[in-house]
């Protein structure tokens, strides 16, 4: 059980939005994490540095955050075999569907892309269904 945090969540969202703004207006790139990570190895040499930089920034964020406040808990109740299954599904699925919560959910919906709306509604509905099956069925 977690508490409803509308204001911090809205502020967090604005920051994520600002990050996508930097990426598109300065670099001309979509801030989609699954695409940035998934194409890291196959990318041409000149297309790799910005990907590594973005991923490094993402990984460094919690280390900067702790300088000013304690980190929120990372609560994982999923068993190891299920974590492996979930990871495989997320990795394969985001590449097959060309995006995840950031690429389709944030950037795609911001662009008013129908393709991303279909993807977002599909992964949201599936995730809600899976949680219902695991917790209530």
């Amino acid at each position: 059980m977690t508490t409803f945090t509308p204001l911090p969540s809205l502020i967090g969202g604005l920051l994520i939005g600002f990050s996508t703004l930097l990426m598109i207006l300065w670099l001309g790139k979509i801030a989609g994490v699954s695409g940035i990570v998934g194409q890291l190895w196959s990318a041409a040499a000149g297309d790799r540095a910005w990907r590594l930089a973005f991923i490094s920034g993402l990984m460094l964020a919690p280390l900067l955050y702790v300088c000013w406040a304690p980190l929120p808990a990372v609560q994982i109740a999923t068993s190891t075999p299920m974590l492996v299954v979930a990871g495989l599904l997320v990795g394969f699925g985001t590449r097959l569907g060309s995006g995840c919560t950031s690429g389709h959910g944030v950037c795609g919906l911001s662009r008013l892309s129908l393709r991303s709306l279909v993807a977002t509604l599909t992964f949201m509905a599936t995730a809600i269904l899976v949680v219902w099956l695991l917790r209530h069925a």
Partner: protein
Amino acid sequence: MSSVIALLAGVIFGLGLIIGGMTNPAKVLAFLDIAGDWDPSLAFVMMGAIAVGFFAFRVARRQAISRLGLPMQLPATTLIDRKLVLGAILFGAGWGIAGFCPGPAVASILIGGREVWIFVASMLAGMGLYTWAARRGWL
């Protein structure tokens, strides 16, 4: 210069995920659990992100090159096909099992410990599996 901006954007993205509560899988699952003790916080993360993103992409659409002189790479595909829907279903299933999507998982690598590493390693394996299968023309 583009790497400096990308690093900064990554840090801001990560801070947004932490402040927004998305790095805690329990909170993400509480958002997805509409039949249980529902925590609608993550809808606010989406609203905040799209409020800024909407403006950003409106500006981007009118420009051929970025502020750093790079080509504006807006997705050209509008196709709604089986790959898109099947991919979203598989991703949604994984997201619903663990409460992790790619951004928060990567942002938690240095703080989350063993479980996060297992998830991220499996996610990378899943991505690799896709690339391998796609190269063979199976997808």
